[in-house]
């Protein structure tokens, strides 16, 4: 094996796997958007907060799994508190108000996490090495990172669980109802506050998973909050309301940015990777603004 074909597939697969990492972050956005119709500006801050809390605990000698459990508990408490303090007073307010509140929450979280744990960057080792897998390289000639495959597996499990949650369970249906109309949801007996607390807690859990994987790759530092920016084109491509969209969008973004970098990069001086997803997103906004899997809202006037 080897040669241009194998190289193409190597680029494609490593792109797809990188895309899974974007999908993970995008998932957090989708969850909140589905339940409250709000673009949660604080998602990046939540990823950062989760990763920093986890890594600081581990550095203080807490066992890996215990640190994970504690961080998860912290994220759940954070989710419930967000509902109580930030969202509850804003029931039945326009969505832009809720969006503004999440911007405030983002700054608060960024300040809080650095206030508690300090602002120096940390390395994070989750025990999976970011190296090419040898047996795969020997058999196919492709160099794919073990870490990427691990992240993809985690993401696959997470997505399956969330998809079951939304499609099959009472809470899932209630969630979609709440996203559509608060008043009507209350009238059929859906406890709005409880649903919001649940969804923010789940989003906190997703932020933790994303934070661990991204933190392990790039180190836990303030720049982790910008991971959320990479989720933006993913969401535009996939649609803000769709879990499947977040996954497919992430894969497309990951694959296309790597392919563009390798095959188009040389002609325009490289560095395509960092801006190509946004161009793609812009093009999508022109062609299909609701995204690949988004719901098209038709309003009668």
């Amino acid at each position: 094996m080897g040669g241009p074909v194998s190289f193409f597939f190597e680029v494609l697969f490593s792109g797809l796997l990188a895309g899974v990492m974007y999908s993970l972050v995008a998932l957090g956005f989708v969850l909140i958007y589905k339940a409250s119709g709000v673009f949660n500006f604080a998602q990046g801050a939540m990823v950062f907060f989760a990763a920093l809390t986890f890594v600081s605990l581990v550095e203080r000698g807490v066992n890996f799994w215990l640190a994970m459990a504690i961080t998860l508990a912290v994220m759940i408490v954070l989710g419930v508190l967000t509902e109580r303090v930030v969202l509850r007073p804003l029931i039945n307010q326009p969505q832009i108000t809720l969006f503004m509140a999440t911007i405030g929450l983002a700054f608060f979280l960024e300040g809080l996490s650095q206030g508690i744990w300090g602002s120096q960057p940390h390395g994070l080792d989750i025990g999976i090495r970011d190296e090419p897998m040898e047996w795969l390289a020997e058999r196919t000639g492709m160099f794919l990172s073990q870490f990427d495959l691990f992240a993809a597996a985690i993401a696959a499990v997470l997505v399956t669980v969330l998809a079951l949650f939304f499609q099959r369970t009472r809470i899932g249906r209630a969630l979609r109802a709440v996203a559509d109309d608060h008043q009507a949801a209350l009238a059929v007996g859906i406890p709005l506050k409880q649903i919001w607390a649940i969804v923010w807690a789940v989003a906190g859990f997703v932020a933790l998973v994303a934070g661990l994987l991204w933190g392990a790759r790039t180190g836990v530092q303030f720049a982790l909050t910008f991971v959320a920016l990479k989720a933006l084109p993913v969401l535009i491509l996939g649609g803000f309301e769709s879990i499947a969209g977040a996954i497919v969008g992430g894969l497309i973004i990951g694959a296309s940015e790597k392919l563009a970098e390798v095959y188009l990069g040389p002609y325009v001086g490289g560095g395509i990777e960092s801006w190509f997803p946004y161009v793609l997103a812009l093009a999508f906004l022109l062609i299909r603004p609701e995204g690949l899997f988004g719901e098209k809202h038709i309003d009668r006037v």
Partner: protein
Amino acid sequence: MSATARTVGLPILVVEGVSLAFGGVKALQGVSFDVREHEIRAIIGPNGAGKSSMLNVINGVYHPQEGTITFRGVSRRGMVVHEAAAQGIGRTFQNIALFRGMTVLDNIMTGRNLKIRSTFLEQAVWLGRARREELAHRRKVEEIIDFLEIQHIRKTPVGRLPYGLQKRVELARALAMEPELLLLDEPMAGMNLEEKQDMCRFVLDVNEQFGTTIVLIEHDMGVVMDISDRVVVLDYGRKIADGTPEEVRANQAVIDAYLGVAH
């Protein structure tokens, strides 16, 4: 055209001395009336009389400053909306409040939400009980769909439906809750004659076949006089008359309120 098969029973809902104010605006002042089991009770009155406020008090959207609401023997002043729903109070809204992104079927299924008993985990893995339960709820919902004659639009997203059908879907969702008390806020507003006749028929059928007690607000006097057993008349937040359609029609205060009177 009053009902024959059903028997009107004892009061299921008692409203006593309810006063509600928004700042200086007195929406309701000492309003008392009762609703008997299985009856169709109308609340009428000129614009701004406090009809919708009254409905919102019954269903827990507003909490009155004075007075009590007694539903099935339990008295309370303030209650949370989803608790009212859990106790068997269903409602529709004056401005349709449907889940626009969902299909008709999914919208109606949300009405079954409170009745689902299987746990979250059972549902996620689609275990025996969850599966049987979901199917049973689906059957119930299909019955309601047949009842309201909306089979042809089951899979349509509600946002695409014409107004009259949206109103019907909203009624279907409320019925899926199998409420004991159904609050209808202007169910026929904005409808053409044919749609109104359909809706009247459905309201009467619901009342007759399911025995559901209904409180409705309506502007169309013809409709109110035709289908309701008893009528409460509100004007400027006060009750000015209460009785059968015939009594109310003959009441001087009501005539004055509607036609205006020289002071």
